């Protein structure tokens, strides 16, 4: 094997093992920064030794042992330094002895599944949402700081600082890198799912001209979701979120036109939907429902996405089902945007008057007063009800509120069509 090929193989092994390695080390060291350093050191050792000795049978265990040895050496060196300078008290020496002993005791432990604990820590609610996302991508996704910065359209310095601060917050809070139990677990899990979906949506929002790393965030979030279903096979919302992401991602290829503009769902070429992802999404949704979580917010959103996925043609869409699902979703996840989508679904299922009645309620709510999609939807209902003059006013109002040039043009075109 050529040297570069060996090198590449080692890098691939390391990529496979990295997150678990950091998870185990963070738990031992109670210091995520040091854990990352030690993992990196282990890679350097492997790069020096494996080309001669070959990749070991169990590379994960090998890397872990190498990292633990480095950790013990580190404790000893610190202790010697402390002695030399004689300026540190016995407490610190004791702490260093403790650390070294703790790791020596764990020297022969298997590389366990501490990954889940690391995921929960990186997504801890003491951190801001942005910090959680950056740290998760860094520690579990293995992305470099500059990649995360490009992915979030941010500067490298900002992201680096965000990660440093997050690590410090984790240290200050004395988090134990464990999976929470009992009532705390549900709240913490919600935070994990939120972060994964945030990463997914960041990728989904990417447009044609963007750096390729942005759309790759979808794949990364899906991978995180799949990992989580492997680690938490009895949690319905974990499957609900995965189902939602897989089904949404199935449309990624069909979503952009040749010129890079977005293609709305009814106009998408359904032959380009990824059937394997749809199949996986539907299976995950079935699992979520079987686990009794059919009414969870992610499972409901996945069920909505599934209605579209199941329709071979736009006109085959089961709008009555979609309307019923929005009725349920607004109970568990009340939001004006859900209400607007619900109004649209009802208009498709039961006619424009049904939509009008519901949109009237929303239009009066202050949150969406300047939100273009509300008058746009209202215009559409009025148009379909044959009330063209009123529809025209709504489309024009929507065009005034819209800040997106193609959308504005589209709305004005619809307004003009009311005069025909």
């Amino acid at each position, binding site marked *: 094997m050529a040297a570069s090929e060996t090198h*590449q*193989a080692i*890098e*691939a*092994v390391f*990529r*496979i093992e990295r997150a678990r390695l950091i998870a185990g080390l963070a738990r031992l060291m109670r210091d995520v920064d040091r854990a990352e350093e030690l993992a990196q050191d282990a890679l350097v050792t492997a790069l020096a030794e494996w080309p001669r000795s070959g*990749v070991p049978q169990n590379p994960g265990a090998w890397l872990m042992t190498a990292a633990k040895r480095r950790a013990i050496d580190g404790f000893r060196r610190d202790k010697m330094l402390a002695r030399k300078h004689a300026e540190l008290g016995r407490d610190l020496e004791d702490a260093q002895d403790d650390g070294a002993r703790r790791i020596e005791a764990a020297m022969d432990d298997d590389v366990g*599944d501490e*990954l889940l604990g690391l995921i929960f820590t990186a997504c801890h609610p003491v951190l801001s949402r942005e910090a959680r996302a950056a740290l998760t991508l860094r520690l579990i996704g293995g992305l470099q700081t500059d990649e995360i910065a490009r992915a979030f359209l941010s500067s490298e310095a900002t992201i680096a600082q965000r990660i440093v601060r997050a690590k410090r917050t984790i240290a200050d809070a004395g988090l134990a890198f464990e999976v929470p139990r009992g009532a705390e677990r549900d709240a913490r899990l919600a935070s994990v799912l939120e972060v994964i979906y945030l990463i997914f949506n960041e990728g989904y929002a990417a447009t044609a001209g963007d750096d390729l790393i942005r759309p790759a965030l979808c*794949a990364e979030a*899906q*991978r*995180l*979701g*799949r*990992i989580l*279903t*492997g*680690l938490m096979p009895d949690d319905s919302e974990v499957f609900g979120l995965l189902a939602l992401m897989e089904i949404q991602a199935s449309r990624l*290829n069909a979503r952009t036109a*040749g010129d890079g503009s977005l293609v709305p769902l009814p106009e998408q*070429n*359904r*032959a*380009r939907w990824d059937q*394997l992802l749809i*199949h*996986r999404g539907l299976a995950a949704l079935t699992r979520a429902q079987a686990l009794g979580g059919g009414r969870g917010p992610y499972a409901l959103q996945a069920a909505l996405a599934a209605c579209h996925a199941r329709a*071979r*043609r736009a006109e*085959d869409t089961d709008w009555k089902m979609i309307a019923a699902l929005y009725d349920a979703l607004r109970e568990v996840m009340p939001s004006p945007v859900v209400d607007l989508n619900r109004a649209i679904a009802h208009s498709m299922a039961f006619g424009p008057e049904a939509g009008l009645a519901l949109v009237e309620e929303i239009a009066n709510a202050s949150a969406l007063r300047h939100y273009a999609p509300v008058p746009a939807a209202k215009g559409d209902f009025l148009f379909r009800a044959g009330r063209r003059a009123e529809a025209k006013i709504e489309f024009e109002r929507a065009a005034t509120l819209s800040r997106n040039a193609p959308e504005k043009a589209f709305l004005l075109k619809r307004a003009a069509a009311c005069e025909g």
Partner: protein
Amino acid sequence: MRVMVMVKATKDSEAGLMPTTEMFEAMGKFNEELVKAGIMLNGDGLKPSSHGKRIAFDGASRTVIDGPFAETRELVAGFWIWEVKDMAEAVEWVKRCPNPMPGPSEIEIRPFYEMADFGEAVTPEIEERFQRLRDEVAGAKR
């Protein structure tokens, strides 16, 4: 990137020899690892080629050939579909797979084509035709 990982057939798999309990267990453990790593999309085993058929094309003619087929080493006995970062990662994962057969065996990794690979070959017209066909099929079913 998406890859198909193919377990090549052997005399044993072609004879319909079932894996031992130990092999089932080892493979189950490996599959679990794949799921936990988030790379496994799909996978299954295939019956021996004696259950299979081939359709040979030559111009307008179509000839159906019944299995079994002779060139055992070129046959597929099972497959996975994985989502990995690159081929190197797929190779490392395959190395961790327990030997799927009682004797010597082979596993082959092949990357999927992606939309970008087709370049200009798939025109919007071709895509539209696909969609029309699909619509007709859907219409006929109703």
